């Protein structure tokens, strides 16, 4: 199943749907999705790089490269490949305004 984002869902379709916001837009995901899966099913990037112009979308998915730390509206960052999405999460692809 092709998504609005980068990834394609190939299996495990029968899971419950849940909702989160991505840069303020309401999006849906499936229970058991990692934050990375959820974000890339709704968009094409996870974050911008602090050092380069290219946006980033993760790299190793096993907690080794640390490429996929993303911002939440309320502050704490999370590693998107190892954290599971939960109902009502408010995720950002850029730092919250209070940070800048």
């Amino acid at each position, binding site marked *: 199943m*092709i998504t609005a984002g*980068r*990834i*394609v*869902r*190939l*299996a*495990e379709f*029968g*899971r*419950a749907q849940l909702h989160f916001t991505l840069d303020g837009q309401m999006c849906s995901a499936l*229970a*058991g*999705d*990692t934050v990375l*899966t959820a974000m*890339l*099913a709704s968009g*094409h*990037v*996870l974050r911008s*790089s602090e*050092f*380069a112009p*290219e*946006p*980033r*979308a*993760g*790299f*190793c*998915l*096993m*907690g*080794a*490269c*640390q*490429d996929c*730390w993303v911002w939440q509206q309320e502050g*704490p*960052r999370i590693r998107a490949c*190892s954290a*599971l999405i939960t109902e009502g999460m408010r995720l950002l692809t850029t730092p919250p305004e209070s940070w800048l």
Partner: protein
Amino acid sequence: MSDASSPKIVIVGAGPAGIRAAAALVEAGFHPVVIDEGNRAGGQIYRRPPDGFVRTPEQLYGSEAAKARALHALFDRLAKEARLTHCAGSSVIAVHEGRLHVLGEGGVQLVSYDRLILATGASDRVTPVPGWQSAGVYSLGAAQIALKAQGVALGRRIVLVGSGPLLTLVGAQLVKAGADVAAVLDTSSWHRQMPGLWDLAARPLVALRGLTLRARLGRRYHAGVTLERIETDGIGVSAMRWHDTGGRQHLTPCDMIGMGWHLRAETHLADLAGCAFIYDEQCRQWLPKIDRMGRAGNGLYLAGDGVRLLGADGAEITGRLAAAACLADLGLPTPSLSADLRKLARLERFARGLARAFPWPAAMARALPDDAVVCRCENVTAAALRESTGFGGSEANRVKSLSRIGMGRCQGRYCQLAAVELIAARIGSTPGAVGRFRGQAPVRPAPIGAFLREG
């Protein structure tokens, strides 16, 4: 024996090596503590999806399903019977004076040990391809984890590049799952793969399975390619530019690239624990120095792909050996190990064959164009690295200080091997002489809040 006077044995990692080590210690009457980053035991290769997923082990692990089932069931039983302590979702971020600094939900805790078994596994060994810092470029392991643990492909049209068993395996798994795999590009030529065959025959079934998987890739598979550049548009990967053995140019449109050349041992904790290292010419990387059983000295033992790159079957064996060494050092009887040691020798011969047939592309790393990004964390280019050698940077850690290579968020895990080749080429030396980046704590990012104590 698990009373207060019993030595405390801690295992880091709950993959095949960690699980086998834990089981052997439980068998001998100990109550080991197993610390693992995963939420469920299994490691990366036998990684289990979250609750609520329905595919069977046969669908997830194919020919290896029985091994995965056995390991999962064994560990779950020992945990349920409280014969070991499982610290899931926890990262060991430092080792200092006999204590582990463990980052979990509740912050950083100190865990002391009398004996420590490190089974920290491996990740993909990668080398930069110009453009690899773009969104949509992943490791081969990432592509496999996405499929196994999430049921997704990381792109609509996929190109896989690299060399080694995982290249073929991930390609075949994605094709089978219904992903659109446009090309599988192997940097090793047929000519190069032939001399490895003799040693690969040490595991005829595994070698045959590899060939069968490759056959499934059909015309997607190309051997002996040269990778030129990853083309990008505003949001990420748009195509892979490469040429074949005949020198013909190809531009394969895609939105995802998976890359990997076999494995790189995860050695940061071994380094912090004080292990000596040797440069392994066969694996083309620095590995912790151990004896045949996995002893590194001072009550430290190593097992699995974090020290010997033999894959999951080898990890089960070396996990048992490390536990046996630990027991022997405590003056306790150990089970007979002759069968495991025999199997180990066979796996080592197979690994030699793999290393020969699917070599690390040192020449490709050495010839990276100046504008190519080597460190994708902090955007350090090949030019910046080459330039830094002119300021006395002939040793890996000098170049690190001068250029910031290896100082980014991955701590050099994905750039180090290519960087060392580049430096060696620049100064007319060898990777072994250039050295390795020293490991630094914390080996995972930790928020300041994790170190704060209330009151």
